[in-house]
């Protein structure tokens, strides 16, 4: 540092750390480079690199006689996704993800609204704990707990018996598509557990979005003649939509990829996650597993594109 003016300096007593700080202050680009390189490498190689490897696998195919992977680029594996059995899996998973997302949004919105607008002080803390605490315990424990609740001899059955409503439960379980032998082996059971497990991921982004809506904006809407329902439709929902979309990205993609919940609770029919698990594990059909894994990525991409086109992010 021969070029610096001596009188402006603290003197030779400066430590190495101070001099490093000084150098970095004078060269912000260097600082940025030092800070960004490790995470960029992590993101680039570990995340995107492996995703790219996966994508590449999906363009290979498997020789069904030898079970060996043919490393020629082909779309044959993707074509396999559209066989009735495989397409059924995709349709079931996407359908489940859609209704889980919708139900989560409907349940989460009032909770988030209350938390953002009315909860104060200690109530706010309690509320956060209530939302977050289920996330702290093991996901498996929660899923098995739900199995006990939903099983044929489970808590829910007792409650229906106690209320003399067993006929109602039986009638519900007799319904096609959503019913089954008991709730724990029905699609309804899978749905309930998905909604339960993913709900916090919906509540928190919606709450964050609602907290940024000043109360005066809702008052202004009412002042201009809007009933509370109209205010919700024209002001609150559009302003909260980025939060709802953010939440739905979580619930939708988590449901699309999950393979544990449908395995423990629900029918024996497969979801995408289970299909991936089986194809890459037992069957050794890595290309098909990879192709299945690409499906949620494509669906999320399309979903976000539509959301953007519909102006969901205009309020950001």
């Amino acid at each position: 540092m021969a070029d610096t003016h001596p009188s402006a300096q603290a003197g030779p007593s400066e430590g190495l750390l101070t001099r490093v700080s000084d150098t970095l202050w004078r060269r912000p680009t260097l600082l940025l480079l030092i800070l960004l390189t490790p995470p960029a490498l992590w993101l680039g190689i570990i995340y995107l690199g492996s995703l790219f490897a996966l994508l590449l696998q999906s363009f290979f195919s498997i020789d069904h006689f030898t079970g060996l992977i043919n490393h020629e680029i082909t779309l044959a594996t993707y074509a396999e996704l559209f066989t009735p059995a495989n397409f059924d899996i995709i349709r079931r998973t996407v359908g489940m993800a859609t209704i889980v997302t919708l139900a989560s949004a409907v349940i989460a919105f009032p909770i988030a609204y209350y938390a953002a607008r009315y909860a104060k002080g200690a109530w706010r803390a309690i509320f956060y704990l209530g939302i977050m605490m289920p996330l702290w315990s093991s996901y498996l424990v929660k899923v098995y707990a739900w199995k006990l609740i939903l099983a044929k001899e489970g808590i829910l059955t007792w409650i229906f018996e106690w209320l003399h409503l067993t006929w109602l439960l039986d009638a519900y379980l007799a319904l096609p598509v959503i019913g089954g032998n008991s709730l724990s082996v029905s699609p309804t059971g899978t749905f309930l557990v998905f909604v339960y497990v993913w709900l916090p991921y919906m509540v928190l982004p919606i709450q964050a979005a609602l907290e940024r809506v000043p109360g005066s904006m809702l008052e202004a809407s009412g002042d201009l003649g809007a009933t509370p329902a109209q205010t919700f439709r024209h002001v609150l929902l559009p302003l909260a939509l980025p939060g709802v979309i953010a939440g739905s990205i979580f619930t939708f993609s988590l449901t699309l990829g999950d393979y544990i919940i449908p395995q423990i609770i629900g029918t024996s029919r497969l979801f995408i996650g289970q299909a991936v698990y089986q194809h890459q594990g037992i069957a050794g059909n890595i290309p098909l597993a990879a192709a299945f894994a690409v499906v949620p990525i494509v669906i999320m991409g399309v979903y976000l594109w539509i959301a953007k086109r519909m102006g969901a992010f205009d309020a950001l």
Partner: protein
Amino acid sequence: MPAVSFDHVSRHFGAVKAVDDVILDIAEGEFFAMLGPSGSGKTTCLRLIAGFERPTGGDIRIFGAPVADLPPYKRQVNTVFQDYALFPHLNVRDNVAYGLMIAGRGKRERHAEAEAALEMVRLGGYGSRKPSELSGGQRQRVALARALVNKPRVLLLDEPLGALDLKLREQMQEELKTLQRQLGITFVFVTHDQGEALSMADRVAVFNDGKIIQVGSPEDIYFRPEVPFVADFVGSSNVLPEALVARLTGETCPAAIRPERLRLAPEGPLKARVTGLSFLGLSTRVSFDAEGTRLTALLPQDVARPREGDEVALTWAPEDLHLMRASERAGQQVGQRVGA
């Protein structure tokens, strides 16, 4: 019939008496200012008229009709919010047309009316912009247009000029006043800026601690404060305590004297020591310690200025000493004598 009338209206939040037993009539077509320091209850009064708060006691009427059970969306009043509260996801035109949209008017019609309202606030052609693309003054006008397009019978303005810089504020004061004269709508206007209240309003209500302390024309409030609080808050007048007034005049009440009316003299009834001087451009503000009372005088620039620490005498014309005889009732409700 008064546009707005408060009959012993209170709004208590637990032990906090935000508005306490207020009696008030606001005449139709009046430009009415509610003036007071923060926390004095003026904004709560405005929110009571708009319907965002409900009174815990008393009766509010808007054009004679009791509004206790009327939600904001059923009241023929509109509000210009302090933070403007423009909807960020709508462009300026849709913001202004919002009330008309809610009222079920067709798109073409409401857009035409919104454009007309924007013209009125001199923002024609800005309809397609987003509120975030406008300056503070422009947003303020959009908020005004958005309220006025609904043709309210009473327009409420909550510190509408608070966020603007001085020059813009003075310009908007003129514009608001002109607009109010043109439209003939009752304006109720909340401010903590005494200059703003005095320059714009037909009548001013001075609030303190949830009560109305004095209501009157700007001249009344400025020249004839009834209590020391009004003299001090509104006019930055010098308040002479009772004991001093008793010695000077024989009257037993506090008195107010305007800083520009105090003069330095070789001989005078009041001895004072100069404690500070500040140059204000047009005049010089001189602070005194007069027998323990802090006084301020505004001296024109052509008068010889004293120096800090000088012992001087102060004098004034007898008519400039305003006796506040009503102040025995200070803190009591003076609203009984308040009428439109």
